């Protein structure tokens, strides 16, 4: 079931109504049933994977918690990690690993074929496996007591607002909320609806509109020139942002209506003034997951600079691999890792900042632009269908600008309008949130007309093909 479908807007009010009507002690069962229904409306058989991950990690979590031997605890932790990663390897990376091994062996003159499973990637697999892993690692690190209630633990793994594309929650944040008694709170309800509305706008008016142009260009790059690739990449950066941030807004909004508080996942990333800041604003739940469960255990900031550089590149390469089973994603992650290393090395050269004496505002604008530019260059590798397309696109971009492909002028203008709306929204939230108030205006009539305007814009300019969210494939 997609957040941008009519089915979801029939499903959600029913769940919300039942949630507040039934006694607190049965609510977990309602949410668990609703979550499985939500997931199984896509492909029922893949719910078995969630059940597998849930059962295995529930048992291993208990074993870790109850064991006194540190050796045994470590074994159970590794079993948990292997069980989650094996699900990912089998259902997400099997073809990628097979093809890579084949290529490596071919280099040594050994030719063989590894048969691929040829299964459809289960939606949200990377999200719920990582969320479940965070639980067992937290239990191992004694940051979280074991969860004894199997139903509540199952709900933690499968909670529908964030099941298929995050935010990747932490057991320490989400599990206790299932025990709290939530009463209907109008302010929270209103805030939830506002987020859903903004999320739908980002997804339907901006992301899905941009997708029309982006898919056309990246689908057959041989037909286009460098200038078109530049425009398509900038469009894609806003598409992927609005697609994912839109999904997250709807997820957080849906949870808020039910009284749950999910973590923030995006914080106006395109206004970041450095790559480091960008990763504090972009997909926050994933970047903090890698920080907490990989980067810090590797030594964090407390290691020698050379080891730190290696660690950052390694973590971001894995982060790239998390996004998809292709070398384009791996390389994208590595580029971000290298960018962060270079950024730190440059900032450690004290004189670097004084080479050009910018005033503060110019420096901010320049930094924002430079960060956005680097992010887009990396996307030129992320978006193409394969490495050879990526090389072709980058080569064309730097050698032959040619003519700009517009396609349908109406679609192009709607796309630009959507981008302008998102920039305006982000700039307002970043710098003028207290000065311009629409959804939070003290006059009810202004609030109501603000909501109505968004609804009309969605109806007038939204794409109603119920397009998939990009991050479902990750």
């Amino acid at each position, binding site marked *: 079931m997609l957040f941008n*479908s009519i089915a979801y807007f029939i499903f959600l009010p029913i769940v919300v109504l039942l949630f507040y009507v039934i006694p607190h002690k049965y609510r977990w069962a309602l949410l668990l049933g609703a979550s499985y229904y939500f997931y199984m409306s896509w492909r029922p058989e893949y719910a078995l994977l969630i059940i597998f991950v849930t059962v295995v990690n529930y048992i291993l979590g208990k074993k870790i918690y109850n064991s006194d031997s540190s050796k045994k605890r470590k074994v159970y932790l590794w079993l948990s990690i292997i069980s989650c990663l094996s699900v990912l390897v089998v259902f997400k990376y099997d073809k990628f690993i097979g093809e890579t091994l084949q290529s490596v062996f071919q280099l040594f003159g050994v030719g063989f074929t590894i048969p691929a499973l040829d299964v459809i990637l289960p939606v949200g697999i990377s999200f719920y496996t990582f969320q479940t892993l965070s639980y067992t690692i937290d239990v191992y690190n004694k940051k979280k007591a074991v969860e004894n209630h199997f139903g509540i633990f199952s709900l933690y793994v499968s909670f529908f607002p964030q099941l298929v594309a995050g935010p990747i929650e932490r057991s320490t944040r989400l599990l206790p909320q299932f025990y709290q008694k939530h009463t209907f709170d109008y302010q929270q309800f209103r805030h939830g609806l506002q987020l859903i509305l903004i999320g739908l706008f980002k997804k339907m008016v901006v992301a899905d509109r941009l997708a029309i142009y982006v898919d056309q260009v990246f689908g057959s790059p041989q037909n286009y020139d460098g200038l078109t690739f530049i425009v398509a990449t900038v469009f894609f950066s806003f598409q992927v942002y609005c697609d994912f941030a839109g999904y997250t807004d709807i997820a957080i909004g849906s949870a808020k209506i039910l009284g749950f508080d999910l973590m923030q996942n995006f914080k106006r990333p395109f206004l970041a003034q450095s790559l480091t800041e960008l990763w504090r604003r972009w997909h926050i739940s994933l970047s903090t997951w890698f920080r907490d469960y990989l980067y810090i255990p590797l030594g964090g900031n407390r290691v020698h600079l050379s080891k730190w550089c290696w660690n950052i590149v390694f973590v971001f390469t894995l982060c790239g691999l998390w996004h998809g089973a292709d070398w384009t994603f791996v390389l994208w992650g590595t580029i971000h890792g290298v960018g962060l290393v270079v950024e730190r090395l440059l900032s450690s050269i004290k004189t670097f900042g004084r080479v050009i004496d910018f005033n503060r505002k110019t420096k901010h604008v320049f930094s924002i632009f430079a960060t956005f530019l680097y992010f887009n260059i990396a996307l030129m590798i992320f978006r193409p269908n394969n490495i050879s397309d990526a090389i072709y696109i980058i080569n064309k971009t730097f050698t032959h600008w040619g003519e700009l492909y517009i396609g349908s002028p109406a679609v192009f203008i*709607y796309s630009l309008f959507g981008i302008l709306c998102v920039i305006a929204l982000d700039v307002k939230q970043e710098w003028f949130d207290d000065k311009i108030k629409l959804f939070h205006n003290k006059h009810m009539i202004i609030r*109501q007309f603000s909501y109505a305007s968004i609804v009309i814009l969605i109806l*007038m300019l*939204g794409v109603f093909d119920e397009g998939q969210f990009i991050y479902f494939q990750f």
Partner: protein
Amino acid sequence: MKGSLSIFNSKYTVLFNLISLLIIISASDYIVGRFLKNYYFKQKAGVYYSTTYSLQEADQDIMIYGSSRALRHYSPAIISAGLGMSCYNAGRDGQGIFYVEAVIKAQLKRYTPKIALIDLHEEMFKYGHEKIDRLSCLLPYFDSQPEIRPIILKRSKFERIKLLSNVYPYNSMILTIAKNNFAKAGDHYGYMPLSRKMRPSELPPPPKKTKTFDKSSINPDTIKSLETICNMLKTHDVKVVLLISPYFGGSQDPDMKEIVKAHAMEWSVSFFDFSGDENIMQDYRYWADRIHMNNDGAMAYSKKINRVLSQIY
């Protein structure tokens, strides 16, 4: 007492806010929807006007139906002059057989053409959600043309709910509506010629013949729709001609043609295959791209159609 009173008041505030919001949204939707509808049906040029004309006003003897290939390949002026009958091109970019069915259903309610030329594109019969999705161009006619509602409702099971909105039928149309309200009325009888000419440098490689024909790629609903169209037209004594116009370098999917040919024989309708026409398919000057002929190509092809039709009718 004071506490319960405040809860009572807050409940009414919530209810009042929700009801007032619904009223404002409904009123805005109504006003904007009426505005768009007014200007949509005021258009006298462009693709939306062509659809309105095909559904609600067309009364020509010969009607041409199909996708962008029909729209770009058949010149009504030439066909009309050749056969001495009036002619209109009701083809539309990006559309398939369901759109053709809708147009014919709407027309047969009003009048009966003498000859129906249906241009078939190999892709028309294959699965692809976007073909159903593109039926959104019929949404403005949901209220006024009840006979085409079942076709519009193929879009999704929630289409009726979406159609509660007055704005939704005109989704993504505002710029085109605005532009076409200022445009000069067209005089091509629906035909929209392409002026672009392919350059020798951009000649595509010759099409690869499909090695194994995958029957499962055919959507049986499209074949059924074509059968419905043929039966409807025959019931009204309309002469039906199924055509496949040329492809640059020849057909990509010869097996599909055989299927259409077999069905045409079964349904007792005429079928002409020009997809491999030697004079047209090899001459790049007749083509705008691999799928679409330009105006020169359309003129040459329309003359050929005339010769064939004049022998039959």
